[in-house]
């Protein structure tokens, strides 16, 4: 085996490994790749742009300080960053005593939901085609879910609500919420299979 080169297109995990030796350029590069994703996710949860900026600064600061906490065996760097972003954003929403945007959307009887509409996504200038395609697949898969299933998943992921809280928010029986959440996630597992590590990619 030849030693791996840290070329212009080093994989994400190689960038994270360089954090341990204080390589700021690796941090900048990781931000260039995933900063927009983190910011979009944070904004979808916290609503205020200034708050979303705080969250993202916090997320990349945490990634920088605790790069050793990233375990490649447990998922992608993007997934790791998304998890930190979601947690931080929901913490901030709770600290402010606000309700997350997803909950507000769900409270509107005939909302289209929180996820990006497909048309809007298609207009995005994607820096990398593969990423744009992956994103479109996620958006489309979510859109194709029956609306009640999509709503409980969005309330859990973007709203940070437990199943019990979702049942209260939607005024539906808890058992119904549980069934919808499971069914929706099963469908997503199928439609997102090409993006999953065990899937056909």
């Amino acid at each position, binding site marked *: 085996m030849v030693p791996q080169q840290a070329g212009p297109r080093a994989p994400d995990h190689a960038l994270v490994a360089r954090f341990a030796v204080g390589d700021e350029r690796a941090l900048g590069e990781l931000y260039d790749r995933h900063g927009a994703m983190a910011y979009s*996710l944070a904004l979808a949860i916290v609503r205020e742009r200034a708050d979303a900026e705080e969250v993202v600064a916090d997320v990349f600061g945490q990634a920088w300080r605790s790069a050793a906490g990233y375990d490649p065996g447990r*998922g992608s760097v993007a*997934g790791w960053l998304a998890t930190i972003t979601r947690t931080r954003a929901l913490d901030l929403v709770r600290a402010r005593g606000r309700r997350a945007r997803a909950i507000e959307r769900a409270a509107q009887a005939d909302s289209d939901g*929180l996820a*990006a509409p497909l048309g809007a996504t298609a207009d995005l200038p994607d820096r990398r085609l593969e990423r744009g395609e992956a994103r479109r697949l996620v958006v489309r898969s979510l859109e194709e879910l029956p609306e009640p299933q999509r709503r409980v998943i969005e309330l859990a992921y973007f709203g940070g609500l*437990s199943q019990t809280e979702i049942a209260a928010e939607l005024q539906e029986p808890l058992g119904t919420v549980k069934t919808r959440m499971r069914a929706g996630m099963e469908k997503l597992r199928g439609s997102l299979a090409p*993006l*999953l590590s065990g899937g056909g990619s």
Partner: protein
Amino acid sequence: MTDHQWSELAAPFALGALAPDERARFQAHLAECSVCRAEVQTLSEVAARLAEAAPAATPPPGLRDRILREARQFRPLGRGRGRGPLAPWLAAAACLAIALGLGYGYLRERAESRQASAALAAARDSLAARDSLVATLLSPDMGTAALAATGQAPSARLYWSPSRRRVVMAVFRLPPAPAGRTYQLWAIAQGKPVSLGVFNTAADGRVTAAMAVPPGITFELSAVTEEPAGGSPQPTQQPFLVGKVTRAD
């Protein structure tokens, strides 16, 4: 609860939608059930992908600079008590980082372990100790760090077996610590130093020592400081030996 009922909790668990008590019980179950663990792993990947469904927004232009600026100011060892930042440790380690690929790295370590055999001979006063050293060196997941001096001439080589939670260190050209002082080996785990133990060298400046690594500790960097006899809970001075761990696997 039947197995079937447990697996129903995987989706809400992956979405973080279980109540705290339910989550705790499911986590306990996960420790014992590989089927549910695999289910959670996949569904967590699905959940993580949902981040991409957020409506696209453009971050403010100054955010990138702010993140880099704040990263520069990060001082994990400073704690406001006049101690130096981690940066010098990291910079020293950066100079030493050896990029070893798969296989290639392993062969190279095998060659280097021949060099270490002279140092290993010093441990033969105890058969048990020797067996432990050899077992650690032969572990398939062995990592190694070459620690080079930041000011003086000594050097050290560290062999780390995560599976056995053992490190073996061979030190060269390091004068014995002065009376009332000792050397202390640190693992830098997530930016924080964790003591692996204290040691001292013989009159010829050498020592080979095996030390236990605390459970759950995974480290990228290792360092040696001089401390008061008995060692310190945290380093009290800048390390004079620093090295980055490279993995043979």
